[in-house]
């Protein structure tokens, strides 16, 4: 198959998909045609180049390639659509921050840090938005759900991996020992683990407590 033909097909596939398409998916799709992944990658680069000056650009996110409105056109698209985007409450954003940086985390653990109860609506909204998901249930009385972030969260924020997120501010200068006492090392460990597992393109966070 000619490269120009492959290019057309890849364009049409990515444009008609509701979710990003990965290189692997494309390679699988073209395996019957014996098109090496190298060629596909090269063609994707060409498409990226070709669309760089148009109203939409080809972008790579955590789960693959997708077109998105180009940087300077976003404001025009926003203007064209009268409905304003949903605004999220501080409570929701704080809950999300805790889930991101302290995942895997239960609702009780979130409440412990925030000092107030977390409304079910917040959790519901985040689950519905598919920014978080239930990773499992903790093996303690009541079997509370353990939450973590999703690939969709990354995609919704133009991120490829959690490691691109701003680092938790090190507000206080603590010694390693103090950190350990305060359980702060765990936070770092968790994030590291999570980022790694994300990079490994895994599905679920592995934890002994998760069933």
């Amino acid at each position, binding site marked *: 198959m000619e490269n120009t033909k492959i290019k057309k097909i890849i364009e049409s596939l990515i444009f008609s998909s509701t979710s990003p398409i990965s290189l692997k998916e494309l390679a699988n799709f073209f395996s019957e045609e014996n098109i090496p992944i190298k060629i596909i990658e090269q063609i994707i680069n060409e498409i990226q180049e070709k669309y760089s000056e148009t109203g939409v650009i080809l972008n790579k996110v955590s789960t693959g390639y*997708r*077109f998105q409105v180009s*940087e300077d056109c*976003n404001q025009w698209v926003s203007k064209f659509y009268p409905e304003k985007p949903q605004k999220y409450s501080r409570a929701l954003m704080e809950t999300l921050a805790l889930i991101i940086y302290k995942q895997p985390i239960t609702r009780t653990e979130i409440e412990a840090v925030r*000092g107030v109860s977390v409304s079910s609506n917040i959790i519901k909204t985040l689950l519905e938005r598919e920014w978080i998901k239930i990773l499992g249930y903790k093996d303690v009385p009541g079997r509370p759900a353990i939450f973590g972030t999703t690939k969709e969260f990354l995609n919704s924020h*133009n991120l490829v991996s959690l490691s691109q997120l*701003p680092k938790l501010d090190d507000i*206080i200068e603590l010694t390693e020992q103090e950190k350990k006492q305060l359980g702060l090392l765990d936070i770092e460990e968790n994030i590291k683990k999570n980022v790694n597992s994300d990079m490994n393109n895994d599905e679920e966070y592995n934890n002994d407590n998760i069933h």
Partner: protein
Amino acid sequence: MDIKSEELKEIEKINVPLAYVKGEPYLNIPKDLYLPPDALEVVLDSFEGPLDLLLYLIKSQNFDILELPVAKITDQYIQYIDLMQELKLELAAEYMLMAATLAEIKSKLLLPLVEEDSLEEDDPRAELIRRLQEYERYKKASLNLEVLPRIERDFYLPNKVSYKAIKKDEVYQNVDLEKLVVIFHKLMEQTKFLTPHDVKKDFLSVREKMTLILNLLKQDKFVDFKTLLDIEEGKSGLIVSFLAILELIKLTLIDCAQANQDSAIFIKLK
């Protein structure tokens, strides 16, 4: 984007108005703690719980968290709570719990200490300070999240481009064979068609053979009876073939002809 980070800075400065009442921004909770009742609700709403309120009280007076001036903060906090109760605002239990915690810390601090180090392990403030610091970390993180580009607020995706579905060369999906047997069984039961004699060990092989024979007969007009029997199939195979032929004759699907007693038997489709 720039606007967003500006916003963030403002939030961080803490001097962001707590509320607007009749267009007037309220930057701080007034010293006498008087606020129009309507506004107080808004103010309360703007705090994400007792830790947030405490953090506000500390920051607004430029105190260091680590130096947590419990006496002052406690007084302010409790005054604040009192006012809210006076105004019969529904107060989350967590606010009351914090008031109690503060009062407890304050009373402990009033007791003479053996050593006066600021942050010893047995400093009654230590746990609260730790919680405040931890909360502050995540509060900041949440503000950082707010300025991340977000889908359908800061950037947009093209809508799914439609395509004309073209039917593929149909690849037929297989049937579930197990299910097939059960369905057959059920049918038999329903119709009371099933008698012990109907189902023999060779039931299927005879049936299958009947089909095979009919196939053969379709191709050639006359077939020698012997060619329908394959020695390779062994004794039971021969019996199956023979039964199949008999069954086909019985069903009047085939004819059987023989010129005379010793000559070959020919079979043909009826």
